[in-house]
């Protein structure tokens, strides 16, 4: 995994055969960034049920578009078995699978899916979006739960500038090595267009937090 994202991942990467859940504003960007590294290393990535994924954003994260497949699930799919069949096929053929927020999977199905993921060594990233209903995430028992809790865009004022960069506070909860919730500050992305974790040493972290406070007060005032 890319070094700049390693603070998010206690084991240095997404373990094969496990799931990671990402939620909050910016979940899509973070999910793409997590997948991009695997993609650059030559892994095949499938994005299922992400009908609105922005292709230029993929390219900006450095994704290898030649090894990225988009699979549209009909939105009105009440047929859980069809979803399960599709996911089963995808998990068998890809190293990394991204799931969109609209996908619903029952408990029994999730267990079968997990077994298949372990069998094929496939990792899953669930982008839960803003309504962290966590339906699929809960049943898939994600190894890591990344919740983007605070975000702040810079570069835009009242009628001036343009979106430049976004700062975000991410809480990472997990099992095993990462059972204690940790807070990671990130650029999502930075002005240079990179998704990186901010230095985790205490001083710069608090400076980042202060910066957040400062801007918020200015806006309120």
């Amino acid at each position: 995994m890319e070094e700049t994202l390693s603070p998010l991942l206690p084991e240095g990467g997404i373990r094969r055969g496990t799931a990671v859940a990402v939620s909050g504003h910016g979940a899509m960007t973070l999910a793409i960034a997590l997948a991009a590294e695997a993609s650059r290393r030559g892994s095949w990535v499938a994005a299922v049920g992400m009908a609105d994924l922005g292709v230029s954003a993929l390219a900006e994260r450095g994704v290898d578009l030649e090894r990225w497949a988009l699979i549209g699930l009909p939105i009105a799919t009440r047929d859980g078995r069809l979803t399960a069949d599709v996911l089963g096929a995808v998990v068998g053929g890809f190293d990394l699978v991204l799931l969109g927020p609209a996908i619903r999977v029952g408990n029994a199905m999730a267990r079968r899916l997990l077994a298949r993921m372990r069998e094929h060594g496939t990792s899953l990233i669930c982008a839960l979006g803003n309504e962290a209903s966590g339906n699929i995430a809960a049943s898939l028992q994600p190894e890591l739960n990344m919740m983007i809790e605070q975000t702040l865009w810079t570069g835009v004022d009242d009628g001036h500038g343009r979106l430049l960069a976004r700062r975000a506070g991410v809480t990472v909860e997990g099992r095993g090595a990462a059972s204690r919730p940790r807070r990671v500050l990130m650029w999502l992305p930075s002005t240079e267009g990179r998704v990186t974790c901010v230095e985790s040493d205490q001083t710069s972290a608090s400076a980042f937090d202060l910066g957040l406070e400062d801007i918020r007060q200015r806006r309120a005032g």
Partner: protein
Amino acid sequence: MAVVNLGDIDTCDNELVAAALEQFTPLAEALRPGLHVLGARGPSRYFGGEKAVAERVVRAIADAVPSAPRAGVGVADGLFAAGLAARVAAASTAVVVVPPRHSQPFLADLPLTSLADQISPLHGEDGTEALLDVLWRLGMRTMGDLAALNEADVLGRFGWPGLLAHRLTRGLGDRALQAEATGDSASVEAEIDPPADRIETVAFTARALADGMVARLARDGLDCVSIGIEAESDSGHASRRRWRHELRFSAADIVDRVRWQLEGWYRSPERPTGPVTLIRITPCVTAPADGRQLGMWGARSEADERATKALARVQGLLGAEAVTVPRLDGGRRPADIGRRVPLFDTAAEAQASPKKAKKKAKAAEAPWPGRLPAPSPAVVLAQPEPITVTDCVGTPVTVGGRGEASAAPQLLTDSAGRSRTVTAWAGPWPLDERWWRPSVRRRQARFQMILDDGSAHLCALEAGRWWREATYD
């Protein structure tokens, strides 16, 4: 599987032979004039053994076409072995039966050049000659020599043709084993009006039908191994025959079969008295395409193969359009810059017009004044969402002729009626595309808006209406 080899016979006699063979099984298929295939399992149960069937076939042909050369019938597990057995049989005892699972020892003593025989799937393929040439220079003389090698080594050194050759020498590689029968729904037909009294006219119509059918099957990742050709005449006669191909039918192959069938039909005792009015082609048996002709994403590794298979399965479940691949293209709006190309299109695109694909790639890199700089939105709505944007007194925000907002946006209401306060915004950036053609002209004023929940959106005002086009999620 039984193969009947009559050597070179004319299409008229061939029609009589085909009729005689249909008495044994309705699924008699012709590879070409003088070379026919029968499923041997059913008839052999009925007539008491494969040898008995084969002998009856020889007699039936001799009765039906006394002038025909002596038939050779070969029976084996696969088409390739059965075909070579029939060739041996024609030159000797009339019947050669290779016991089940004994194809490899039977083939082992035959010369390596048999791999280029008419009956071989490698016949006429690109690279077959070169492959056999190299194998010959490596000192291999019989198919047994090749079969003795390790499969993985052969694949690594010679690629796909080598693998197929290796499988053939071991009595494998017969595609019918994994083939699937298709229903009549896949058939294509054309009425010929005015009715055609010349075969070339029918062949011309058949060419268009065959092109469409083969392209459609290729799009679904299928090769056609066996087809049914039906022709009707205005005198009420009809001709139905099945044809098999050793590897897969191309459109030109199908047209050849149509020609052969009609020639035979018009010269047979049951010839129609009128011109042809209808031609119908049905793909009877299809097999998963092995992907050679797809060449989807460049080099094929094991991971490529796995992913391709999974995607084919998903296409089977959801329809071919459900699987797309992202492509960058020229344009100014996010939905134009990043396109989703259906999977089968990318294959066709790359194969049909490398020039066009290159042009597209160039368009993506060219500067597009008016394009918003990075970061790009991670969510681009396939269907922009209609919204309303109002100022602090509730009046809809508009953009004047000078490209300035009438007031600062204050409240954004989405299509579900939920409102959020706009905490920061930027714009408007005008976009005037294709102003030289009124029918496709687009004029937009674009805004970036940050809402009080921290989300950022790309909104556009077009012809007095507001749309949310993308979200910087």
